[in-house]
């Protein structure tokens, strides 16, 4: 019981990266959708929409603008896009590509 109480009192994690899609500066992306992490030697392939999103974030576009543009161009509901956005973030985080 006390443990549960204490857990509830914990402050939010100071550096939760969940909400920002910012690739580490050394990550190389190519037009064909390849991602290369020079620090680990890992290579990744993005599907066209993920490649598009990553390219835009690299140019400094913010998430809201990218999402608005996707909603305008693609046949997708806002809720679905939000969910998939979070999922892409989780993948990037999992692969250790986020700043």
């Amino acid at each position, binding site marked *: 019981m006390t443990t549960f109480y204490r857990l509830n009192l914990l402050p939010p994690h100071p550096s939760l990266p969940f909400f920002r899609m910012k690739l580490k500066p050394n990550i190389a992306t190519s037009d064909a959708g390849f*991602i290369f992490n020079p620090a680990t030697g*890992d*290579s*990744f*392939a*993005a*599907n*066209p*929409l*993920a490649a*598009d*999103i990553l390219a835009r974030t690299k140019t400094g576009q913010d998430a809201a603008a990218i999402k608005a543009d996707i909603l305008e*161009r*693609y*046949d*997708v509901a806002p809720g*679905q896009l939000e969910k*998939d*956005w979070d*999922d*892409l973030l*989780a*993948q*990037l985080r*999992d*692969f250790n590509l986020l700043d």
Partner: protein
Amino acid sequence: MKLPYERPTIRKLTAGALNKFGPRAGATPTTALDGVRVEELVARFGSPLFVLSERQLRRSYQAAVRAFGTRYPQVQLAWSYKTNYLNAVCRTFHQEGAWAEVVSGMELEKALLNGVPGPHILFNGPGKRRADLERACAVAAVIHLDNADELHLLLDVAASRPAPPRVALRVNLDAGSYPQWDRFGFNLENGEAWQALSRVVASGRLELVGLHCHIGTYVLQPSAYATAAAQLAALALRCQRKLKTTVQYLDLGGGFPSTNTLKGAYLPATDTVPSLDEYAEAITGALLAAGFRTGELPLLVLEAGRALVDDAGSLIGTVLATKRLADGRRATILDFGVNLLFTSFWYDHHISPARQFSDQTEPTVLYGPLCMNIDMLRESIALPLLSAGDQVVVHKVGAYNMSQWQQFINLRPNVVLIDQTSQVHLVRAAETLEYLQQLEQVPVHLQS
């Protein structure tokens, strides 16, 4: 017109193989079944939905009759009820000329209600009760004896019958296939079968009409059937010689595989499973060479189940959610699970998306909707980037699923039959809570 959406995803490049479709081809979608659009079926009948193809049922039956009938003068198929005893399925096969093979009192009654004459019902199984035997005798079904206790019980029942019940003896033998089934019937090698046959004939109270042998399930060696057929034929000839009894039919059972791939198989079943013609060649070749005199060849009975019905069934389902597991793997939750797709315990079913996707695929775990850890349909399968609401079609699910399905956590869904003119008929309505509860009784003290 907006662009088609596919969720953004990245994958780590590994030294391993590409997905099974190759790098440039996605999974081929199944947008329609027998000319009816999947979308339309779901709109009318909901999801999940079992879909049966009458065209395929008849085609499979006719192919089996052709495979055996062109090689042997007298062939009779007996539809294995337990494989799928929906009346629409049974009646389709009976219309085509099938007898019924049943394994319980319930199935016996079902066959009678489907209009099968008693003498065309073969009653198998290790669990026949006295009442079942009495009923079988009353309708003149053929009783396939499984064990000595049953034989003595039937002799007792027969004592009060006006005519001797017609019986066949189920025999188990070593046909060289693995595992060797020895739990059903009387063993040939240790003399048990001969002893039982002698007793049947000597009793004078039973009429021996057939010998039966069913060597296993999903047996991949046609040669095993040839061995079984040769041994059964030799036994029949011995009955004629020693017991002066002519065996009218030899029943080689079923166990023929469908083209569903067994879990753990290296190559897909569509490439490796022998055709029904190869089984027919093995069985009829052995019988024709067994030494029967011309004109005295016994009737060949086959109890095909899976091989007749598996291809004719499909299961349409819907993605409820996709998620990522702790280790990063994709998981897809469908609205059907092992409760409806029992065969996913032993098959890697072929599963198609119901609409066109790009050629991007990803490996995913497939889960059913049950809040039970065992509810996993596939540990890993490469599928397009499915999202909640997308439909999938599971192919070749006609055998066993519609009889072994469970009413567990969820109710069982609609089953439709698409006839040969592409008309859709509801053949079993989705269950309701009322249906589920109609046999329940709540004691008075729990009612208020």
